[in-house]
């Protein structure tokens, strides 16, 4: 509530009272004393004790809330799956963009070599008539051999890493097979002992 008095030099007006809007929420009465114009600061606004009262949720909102809570486990599963898939998709996209950038500025003699490697694959496909397995193996083999002639270092590194992974998987499968074979033998031995000692 403000009481406005006449300014010096202004036309003569009787002082009048201005009422500010009441606080939202109802029922709260402000007990602040009325301020005159001279008491108001030029550099800061007076403190406002208003509080925002949210509207109450209707029936439709409550039903939507119920459906949302019911669907929460599924939405959480979806977001978890998306978080797992997203980095893989980003890797694929990054690989595609890197390959495109590489093809735009290829290294020296890239396209002629790619043409010869492709021709080797086509030759393998031509020679592998009559068998589906040969159609898979011959082109891949011919292309691998021709690529290794042009890029021996990369071919050696790939061959070494492939050999290591094949050796590791062979060792693991051998260990698993040994474990499976030993377990039935130990069970049979325990069964014989229990039969001897009633």
């Amino acid at each position: 509530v403000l009481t406005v008095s006449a300014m010096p030099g202004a036309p003569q007006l009787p002082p009048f009272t201005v009422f500010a809007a009441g606080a939202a929420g109802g029922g709260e009465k402000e007990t602040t004393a009325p301020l005159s114009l001279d008491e108001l600061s030029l550099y800061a606004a007076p403190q406002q004790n208003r509080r925002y009262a949210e509207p109450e949720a209707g029936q439709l909102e409550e039903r939507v809330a119920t459906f949302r809570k019911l669907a929460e486990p599924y939405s959480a599963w979806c977001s978890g799956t998306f978080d797992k898939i997203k980095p893989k998709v980003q890797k694929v996209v990054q690989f595609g963009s890197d390959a495109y950038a590489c093809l735009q500025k290829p290294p020296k003699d890239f396209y002629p070599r790619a043409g010869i490697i492709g021709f080797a694959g086509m030759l393998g496909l031509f020679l592998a008539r009559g068998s589906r397995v040969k159609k898979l193996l011959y082109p891949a083999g011919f292309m691998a051999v021709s690529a290794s002639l042009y890029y021996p270092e990369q071919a050696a590194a790939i061959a070494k890493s492939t050999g290591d992974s094949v050796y590791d998987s062979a060792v693991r499968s051998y260990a698993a097979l040994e474990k499976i074979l030993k377990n039935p033998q130990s069970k049979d031995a325990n069964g014989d002992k229990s039969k001897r000692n009633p």
Partner: protein
Amino acid sequence: MSEKELGKKWDRCLADGVIKLGTGLGLGIVFSVLFFKRRTWPISLGSGAGLGMAYANCQNNLRSHYLQHRIEAVCFRTASCW
């Protein structure tokens, strides 16, 4: 923003979306039957406009939390706000 607050905002968004979509669809059907010889485009226009208004409201509602905090942060730094 807490999860409870975010959940309430989403509830309000979805309820608002349902109401606006339904109203747009209804008005579209009425106009289509009365003035446009039962064509499909007023229905599509009405439902699309309703959905768009609901989307805009929802966007403002979800952003308002961060804008309010940004205004408060600016007021705190400058120490003079109207």
